[in-house]
């Protein structure tokens, strides 16, 4: 009796966890191993019975594939522009929402709308805004005399990627706003009062109290967002499908299209694995931060 009780107590947490762990092993980790396995094969889905093992040929092919490098460069621009833009707009929004005014609850609720919409709908309505003939953006810029004639925003290789980046900025800035607002509200009011007594103006208060106070939240939110934005391909897929030409290819989109349109699951998997390995650098940073919070 006295021996079995502690044993049961020791086993209990694992028993409680086992359903979730078993299912995620089956539907996440096993498929991932399968993807790694597939990346070492020549696997084209309409030739089902031939699946030769080709070692690292797919990876070698990627490095000499021009589209791989184009996609990689676009992924860099994609993350490098979208995340800072989301961050700046989110920060501005959060700073405004942190001040009391009578319609603050309404503003806070409305700001979140972009976050709640399906990405297909987001892609649809921005395609309408960017429409070269009847779109609101062209109409507005023509009326303001900023443009002389309409620009086909999504059909022009020079503007397509940036047009989608603006769309994604719109989709993602509420997330930053909400996260940063939570961080701002955790800063004690007394810090500002003390600083005001010492004669610090709004700018110095921002640099010496606000920014250090939200630094932790900022880093976490940026890491999360980099991962999210890097992975996000649905908006691009619906808006341009990667085109015109390769103008809006990012690396995960390239992997997806390889499998979807060419049914080349071997090469597609290799691209997905390469992308994941690169992304892991950011993921590890994020996990290390969170691991500290979980430790207690």
């Amino acid at each position, binding site marked *: 009796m006295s021996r079995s009780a502690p044993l049961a107590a020791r086993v209990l947490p694992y028993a409680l966890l086992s359903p979730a762990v078993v299912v995620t092993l089956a539907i996440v980790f096993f*498929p991932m191993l399968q993807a790694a396995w597939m990346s070492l094969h020549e696997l084209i889905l309409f030739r089902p019975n031939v699946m030769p093992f080709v070692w690292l040929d797919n990876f070698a092919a990627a490095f000499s594939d021009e589209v791989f490098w184009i996609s990689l460069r676009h992924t860099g621009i994609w993350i490098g522009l979208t995340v800072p833009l989301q961050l700046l707009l989110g920060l501005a929004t959060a700073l405004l929402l942190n001040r009391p*005014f009578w319609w603050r609850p309404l503003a806070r*609720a*409305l700001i979140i709308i*972009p976050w*709640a919409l*399906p990405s297909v709908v987001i892609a649809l309505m921005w395609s309408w805004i960017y429409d070269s003939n009847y779109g609101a953006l062209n109409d507005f810029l023509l009326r303001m005399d900023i443009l002389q004639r309409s620009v086909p925003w999504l059909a022009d290789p020079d503007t397509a990627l940036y047009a989608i980046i603006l769309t994604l900025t719109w989709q993602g800035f509420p997330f930053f706003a909400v996260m940063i607002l939570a961080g701002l509200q955790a800063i004690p009011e007394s810090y500002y009062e003390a600083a005001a007594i010492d004669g610090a103006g709004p700018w110095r208060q921002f640099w010496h109290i606000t920014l250090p106070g939200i630094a*932790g939240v900022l880093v976490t939110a940026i890491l999360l967002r980099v991962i999210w934005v890097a992975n996000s391909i649905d908006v691009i897929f619906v808006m341009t499908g990667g085109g015109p030409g390769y103008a809006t290819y990012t690396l995960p989109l390239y992997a997806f299209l390889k*499998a979807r349109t060419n049914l080349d699951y071997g090469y597609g*998997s290799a691209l997905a694995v390469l992308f994941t390995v690169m992304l892991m650098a950011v993921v590890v940073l994020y996990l290390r931060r969170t691991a500290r919070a979980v430790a207690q």
Partner: protein
Amino acid sequence: MIRSRPPALRLLTLHLPMLLIVAFALGPWLWMLVTSLTPQEQLFTTGPSLADATAANYERLFRTVGFGRNLVDSAIVAGGTVIVGLTLSVTAAYAFSRFRFPGRRLLMLQFLLINMFPIVLLILPLFVLMRTLGILNTHVALIVANATVAIPFAIWMMTSYINAIPTELEEAAMTDGCTRLGALVRVILPLCAPGIVATGIYIFITAWNEYLYALTLGGNNVRPITVAIQTLIGEYQVQWGLLTAGGIVGALPATVLFLIVQKRLISGLTQGAVKG
């Protein structure tokens, strides 16, 4: 921050920029709404306006395009994902919250890690696997695919909700003769019911909005609303009245639910980030 500023300055540094940001956030959606209420012919002449507002686009959407079935498919997939996600994660979250055991941190991080993996890395093998198992183009396929996101998310949310419930309550129940599982069912679950509801709703929204899995694994048989909207874009390229009506309908359930639970949800989502 308490000192009062002149009203003109407040208008310039607070109300005006806030209004601009709200307009930016809401503008595209409002524009879509106005377009969907404008008669189709008028879109290419005078442009979208509410002067002759009509529901014609919506009627056409349900009559000729048949959006009804797609809404049902979406509801089945999203509802199924909620059930799978919540049932599998309640006991796991309880274990993480109430026990300290070897491997706890590793297992928790493992669940966090899952959400970071690119969807492309999963979507390709899931397609091949489900094809082999013969469950491609079924609701089950989409529920399983969505569960890859829902389970880890639910576990993290529920763990933080259960953490907020004092242990004394279940200890009292256990000294009164409850087993641990009895205490979980009778004490913990009722107390974190609001959290469970919020988590469930968030899972529902995510599954409802999901597109790539639905496109790849649902085939022609199961076509949730997101896939239907994308097909509309392909078929009715310039009929923006119809397209935007589809967009409004497709986004409505998720948007309404989100506005209802946003407060509780956001406190749960940001808790970890603020502490870490």
